[in-house]
């Protein structure tokens, strides 16, 4: 059930976009493909949709091998980063497009489109053109258009990438609620770890044309399989040559056994979070994340001597085998 991608390889000329990638997506789940740009996540999504033909491997959707099928026969819904709205058609016509292609009776088309317009909260905007909608509204229209034909799977390619931060946050929460209502198997491509963590049940982290790890958001954060995953799903800093999460460091203003001595170079107040940058003696510079309620915060300022020690779980030993982590 769901989607199975097996041993997918895809090359564009000399560039290998997907290198023997296998992934299973359970039916009814919302899975995020997370990774930096160029990691192959969009290509994998397009291979599932049939918009790219893989060089090797197969794609199975709901137990049917779809590798050789054209996109229009696969029963997928696809939402593009830049909406791909049909510019010369109204909202109604956009959403009705897939139904009309399937020769759905007129009355049924009207009924279904109106239902979807309500579902994506565009009530009263049926006669508008895409140019008269905001970015967020356009993307909701695109989502309704994809859902109209009752696809087996819904594929979203950086759907909120072109929207501003506030609208993004709103739409994310809305998408999660929508998924809980509609239950269609959904794959979301994103480069934003917060977005993936917030929306998805499962996250597949991709890097360099391969899948690094597939896990729930919580497991991904707590037991990353590699230094890359660890660096990608949360901030990292270096203490005493070891990679640690910046909130898992304790600071003292008096000497402590085994702690690294240094001086505060800067204190940054970010609302609830307070970020302290420290020049450590004989070690790399580091930074520490504190809450504003931490009593030590009032004692900190540039030039104050501090002693830093790790208090969190040690980094998994196999994590250091990989490349340098990406700073976030």
């Amino acid at each position, binding site marked *: 059930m769901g989607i199975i991608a097996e041993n997918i390889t895809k090359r564009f000329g000399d560039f290998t976009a997907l290198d023997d990638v296998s992934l299973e997506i359970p039916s009814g789940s919302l899975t995020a493909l997370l990774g930096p740009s160029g990691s192959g996540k969009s290509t994998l999504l397009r291979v599932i*949709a*049939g*918009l790219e033909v893989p060089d090797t491997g197969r794609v199975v959707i709901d137990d049917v091998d779809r590798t050789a099928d*054209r*996109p*229009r*026969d*696969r029963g*997928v*819904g*696809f939402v*593009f980063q*830049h*909406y*791909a*709205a*049909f*510019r*010369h058609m109204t909202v109604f016509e956009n959403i009705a*497009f*897939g139904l009309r*292609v*399937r020769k759905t009776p007129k009355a049924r088309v009207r009924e279904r489109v109106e239902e979807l317009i309500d579902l994506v909260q565009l009530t009263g905007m049926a006669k508008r*053109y895409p*140019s*008269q909608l905001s970015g967020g509204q356009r993307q909701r229209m*695109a989502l309704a*258009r*994809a859902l109209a*034909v009752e696809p087996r799977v819904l594929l979203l390619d950086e759907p909120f990438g072109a929207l501003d931060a506030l609208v993004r946050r709103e739409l994310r929460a809305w998408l999660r609620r929508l998924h809980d209502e509609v239950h269609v198997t959904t794959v979301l491509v994103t480069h934003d770890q917060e977005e993936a963590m917030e929306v998805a049940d499962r996250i597949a982290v991709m890097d360099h044309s391969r899948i690094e790890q597939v896990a729930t958001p919580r497991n991904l954060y707590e037991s990353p399989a590699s230094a890359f995953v660890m660096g990608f799903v949360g901030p990292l800093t270096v203490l005493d040559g070891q990679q640690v999460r910046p909130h898992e460091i304790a600071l003292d203003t008096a000497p402590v056994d085994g702690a690294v001595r240094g001086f505060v170079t800067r204190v940054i107040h970010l609302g609830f979070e307070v970020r302290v940058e420290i020049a450590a003696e004989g070690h790399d510079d580091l930074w520490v994340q504190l809450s504003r309620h931490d009593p030590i915060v009032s004692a900190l300022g540039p030039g104050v001597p501090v002693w830093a020690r790790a208090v969190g779980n040690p980094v998994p030993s196999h994590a250091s085998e990989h490349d340098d982590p990406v700073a976030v």
Partner: protein
Amino acid sequence: MCTLIAVPLNTIFGVMFAMLVVRRRMRGRNFFSLFADLPLALSPVVIGLSLVLVWGIHGWFGGWFFEHGIRIIFSLPGMVLATIFVSLPFVVREVVPVLRAVGTEQEEAAEVLGASPSRIFWRITLPSIKWGVAYGVILTTARALGEYGAVAVVSGRMTGQTETATIFVDSQWTQFNEEAAFTAALVLAVIAVIVVVAVNLIVRKEDIDGHHR
């Protein structure tokens, strides 16, 4: 007459050509796009002479047609061919950048929604490039009406039979029929002005559309 036949044909060729160059990942498409520019670089007289060479009675294909009773050079088919060749680049040149700018997302979206290739072309691609096509058609019309060199060579300039407006102007003028020459020239000039105004209107319309993107 030449224009009436050549413009619709060139519209179809031009759009097909542009689709081929922009949308297909095929070998030699750069060569094809160069080929579309060739008539701009060649002198129309040279184009006329090459057509005579190929389609004339002693040409590569002309001989076969002549044996079957079809005259190409010194008659209408030759003149239409010349006009098509000379004005071919205009639709292509206008449509190619528009096709590139529109991108493939809308077409892909339609494909995923189940539309057939022909439906995608008529319902999605064509409506989004229609202003580029219109602009190209107008320029093609202008060029086809104003063409002299290539057509003059292949037509044989038989008065009243294989004569285009520009050839008529020239022959009346050389025969000191100034009144007729100027009248015909004026008609051509008026058409030219109308064309330029139409092009401007389209460009403005495109700008307005562009703001809504």
